[in-house]
């Protein structure tokens, strides 16, 4: 029986449990001996000109070796001069609280915090721009030379007549609010410059992309930069490649010619690491009273923060997935991207697709409420049918495989949907204080969206019979080492404990894309699988020679990990023997796996919430899911990804929100104020299994990393709204905090 599909505990864990991981700030390498500590000086104001920076007092502070500002960055390639280009250190203008302005280099970290307070920056305040409305109004421009705060737009309004023939049309505007990724490990980096070469250790999801970014920013050839990825304590999209703070550390290491280390504080992380989501949605949905949706239009205003980073492209992904799991006669979308004097926006678990799902699921619920039909039933009546795949959406996505109705049926059955509705009815009838709400969501999402980049894998089996995988993917909790070892052992029969998986060092693995977009198993895993197949066939040839038999007469005994003439175990050859025959380097295969398309996992969630109608407090009491990402390689890992995804999705629906005051001052700059979800706000989850393989890759797998989040947010929000729908509430903005729920009840009653 193959190990694939079985529950395998992780090979990573013994080390992580007993010694703790080695995260970037844990490094105690000889190359970093005597490293100075970098402390950033950051803007305390949201929007201001800088008229002067005085570093004299800081230079006199104990332990200070240097203070660097943009004025010292005369060794960098000239910027292209386009408006909205983001500098490394701010020179004449700051555009968000937390924007880096200077760095202080000290003997130890405590001194750095003392000295950073002494750097004196003269700010000339400018009007802040907070929120998309303020950005669109354009009274204050972040980049005056650009003439507008709108940095990109696309799509268009629904054509005339698109909503003709609809019995019912519902329109609503609501936020998909800004959230903070909050990986437990904040950003950190260490850098050395020696012999014309930069070595950068960074908490990143993509070492090769980070290398290229750093090289470009510093005017270096990529071969002059080595990026090494230590253990990474969570990324969620916020640690893709690298960012200006890390590049500053690299630059300063070259400038000073001394090793440097940097780790930010959590406050810096909440202000200086990218935020996620931050879209405003206006939905228009129309259909007939029997539940058929005829038309849907989504308008997006994307707040991309002070500088356009990946936030510029998120709406394109939202547009692509706008129609979700539904077969819609008309589906259109439009978007604008605006800059505001806030932290830049980038990818965060789902990156544009949770937004699409949240919008259409909210729209479907509003439509269902308007026509008075059960929201699960309305969904069922509009799902893309199972015989329609591959299915091309109005947004241009080609869904590979899907069984949307089956997923919905399964989750409703697992949740006991009729019983839940009955309990809800009983509580409503008795006008109980604590009401029950049921939220249903159906979703589909795109994984390996950047499929054309593919992923690399090198596999080596050496003369001892041990195997080493060199993968371009870059785990930060996902368990790739275990998953890829399972793939190798399933093809070659080499035991798991003789398989090592290496990643994240650009000298060892010069070509790779890294991990985001739920791509790693389908791309990285397929590459590993293919490399294993190639190694196996190389070995077959060599074994045939050694055994003086024809290849057709040989078999690989996977249980023993030996080659032999079929049926004759006395001829067994070990992998060591065969690999030794290949020469000193052993057996090796290099694969660059490039599929023809992305894949589209899908699912359905049911969230059950209790709402205290006197206080407005919502409690999630059950969360039941189907998340179908094709074949499941290791249920342990898949479940873990689903759990983590659900938690972050629920968190956005009920608790988390980055907030600024009208002057652009952050109100949620600590973990005391930013309400990351804890164990007490979540129940144990109920996961239902479902596997609809894809034909896009040989493993039949799609991506699971973000799916849980995408399905969870709309279901959880919907459950809260549903709990108080009988009181006249149709909608509550996310996050559905007690204040918002109470306000909605009060407004509905008045």
């Amino acid at each position, binding site marked *: 029986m193959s190990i694939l599909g079985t529950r395998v*505990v*992780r090979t*990573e*864990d*013994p080390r*992580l*449990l*007993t*010694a*703790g*991981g*080695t*995260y970037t*700030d*844990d490094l*105690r390498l000889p190359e970093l001996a005597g490293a100075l500590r970098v402390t950033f000086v950051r803007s305390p104001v949201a929007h201001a000109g800088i008229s002067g920076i005085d570093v004299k007092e800081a230079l006199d*502070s*104990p332990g200070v070796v240097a203070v660097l500002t943009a004025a010292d960055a005369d060794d960098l390639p000239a910027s292209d001069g386009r408006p909205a280009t983001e500098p490394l250190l701010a020179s004449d203008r700051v555009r968000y609280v937390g924007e880096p302005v200077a760095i202080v280099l000290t003997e130890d970290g*405590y001194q750095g915090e*003392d000295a950073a307070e002494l750097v004196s920056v003269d700010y000339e305040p400018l009007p802040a721009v907070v929120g998309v409305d303020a950005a669109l109004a354009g009274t204050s421009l972040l980049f005056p030379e650009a003439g507008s705060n709108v940095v990109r737009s696309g799509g268009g309004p629904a054509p005339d007549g698109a909503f003709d023939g609809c019995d019912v049309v519902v329109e609503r505007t609501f936020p998909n609010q800004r959230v903070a990724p*909050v*990986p*437990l*490990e*904040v950003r950190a980096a260490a850098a050395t410059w020696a012999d014309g070469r930069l070595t950068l250790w960074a908490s990143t999801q993509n070492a090769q992309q980070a290398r290229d970014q750093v090289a470009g920013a510093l005017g270096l050839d990529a071969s002059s930069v080595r990026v090494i990825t230590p*253990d*990474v*304590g*969570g990324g*969620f999209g916020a640690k893709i490649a690298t960012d200006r703070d890390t590049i500053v550390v690299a630059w300063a290491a070259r400038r000073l010619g001394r090793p440097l280390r940097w*780790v930010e*504080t*959590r*406050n810096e992380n909440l202000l200086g690491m990218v935020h996620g989501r931050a879209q405003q949605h206006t939905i228009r949905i129309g259909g007939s009273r029997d539940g058929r949706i005829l038309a849907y239009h989504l308008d997006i205003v994307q707040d991309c923060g002070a500088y356009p980073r990946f936030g510029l492209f998120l709406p394109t992904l939202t547009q692509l997935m706008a129609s979700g799991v539904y077969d819609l006669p008309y589906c259109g979308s439009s978007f604008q991207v605006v800059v505001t004097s806030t932290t830049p926006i980038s990818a965060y678990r789902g990156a544009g697709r949770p937004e699409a799902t949240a919008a259409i699921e909210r729209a479907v619920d509003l439509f269902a409420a308007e026509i008075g039909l059960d929201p699960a039933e309305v969904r069922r009546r509009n799902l893309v049918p199972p015989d329609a795949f591959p299915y091309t959406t109005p947004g241009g996505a080609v869904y590979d495989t899907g069984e949307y109705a089956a997923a919905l049926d399964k989750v409703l059955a697992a949740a006991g949907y009729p019983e839940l509705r009955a309990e809800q009815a009983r509580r409503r009838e008795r006008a109980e204080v604590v009401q029950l709400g049921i939220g249903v969501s159906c979703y589909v999402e795109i994984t390996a969206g950047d499929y054309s980049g593919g992923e690399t894998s090198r596999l080596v089996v050496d003369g001892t019979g041990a195997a080493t995988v060199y993968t371009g993917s870059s785990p*930060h*909790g*996902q*368990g790739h080492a275990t998953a890829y070892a399972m793939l190798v052992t399933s093809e070659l029969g080499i035991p798991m404990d003789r398989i090592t998986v290496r990643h994240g060092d650009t000298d060892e693995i010069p070509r790779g894309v890294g991990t985001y977009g739920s791509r790693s198993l389908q791309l990285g895993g397929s590459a590993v699988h293919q490399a294993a197949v190639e190694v196996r066939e190389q070995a077959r040839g060599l074994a045939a020679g050694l055994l003086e038999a024809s290849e057709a007469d040989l078999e690989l005994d996977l249980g023993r990990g030996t080659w032999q003439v079929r049926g004759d175990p006395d001829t067994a050859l070990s992998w060591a023997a065969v690999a030794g025959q290949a020469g000193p380097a052993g057996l090796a295969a290099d694969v660059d796996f490039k599929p023809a398309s992305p894949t589209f996992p899908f699912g359905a969630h049911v969230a059950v919430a209790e709402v205290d109608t006197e206080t407005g407090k919502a409690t999630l009491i059950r969360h039941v899911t189907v998340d179908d990402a094709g074949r499941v390689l290791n249920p*342990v*890992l898949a*479940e*873990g990804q689903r*759990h*983590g*995804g*659900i*938690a*972050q999705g629920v968190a956005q629906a009920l608790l988390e929100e980055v907030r600024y005051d009208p002057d652009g001052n952050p109100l949620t700059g*600590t*973990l*005391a104020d930013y309400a*990351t979800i*804890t*164990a*007490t706000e*979540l129940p*144990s*989850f109920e996961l239902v299994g479902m596997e609809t393989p894809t034909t896009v890759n040989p493993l039949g797998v799609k991506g699971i990393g973000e799916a849980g989040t995408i399905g969870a947010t709309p279901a959880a929000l919907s459950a809260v709204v549903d709990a108080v729908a009988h009181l006249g509430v149709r909608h509550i903005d996310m996050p559905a905090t007690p204040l918002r729920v109470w306000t909605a009840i009060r407004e509905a009653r008045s």
Partner: protein
Amino acid sequence: MDRDQGGSLVNVTMTVNGAEVAADVEDRTLLVHFLREAAGLTATNVGCDTTSCGACTVLLDGESVKSCTVLAAQADGHDVVTAEGLAMRGAGEAGGGELHPVQRAFRREHGLQCGFCTPGMVLASVSLLQENPQPTEAQVRMGLEGNLCRCTGYHNIVRAVLAAAAELAAEPGEPGEPDAAALAAGPAEVAP
């Protein structure tokens, strides 16, 4: 070393994972930094600035504390256990090698992904089980309210703690009581 800004140095000596660690440090040195630097034990992590996340949790005189909100000087003369010290001495082994029952349970139940919250989470769990050997799920969740995890959604962490509780209850000793030796057995000597 020159310190002319009003701070001074203090000699701090404490037992960490069974071994004495002594150093002269700034008075304001946080215990978590003492452990990571002076004691050279980096499993204990810093995750926040506001005593919110629990990644820095260690056992101080056997009880869970957030080491970012304890001065090293306050731990002078006291006993600290970090994740590195939790691994049990295996039978006949000179140093730690065998996972503590709680660590074993975390592995079996996939209660860790990126691992950053894990040392603190495991020690908070050990302390929780010491004080409440047979917790309900709700008590486990409440008992871990001070420990954030961003990867696991807590589901498997809760399973791990409940599994560890069951295992500890089933071990030889007083029926229904945790094996005190298992929980508090001499921590492995881990060289700093």
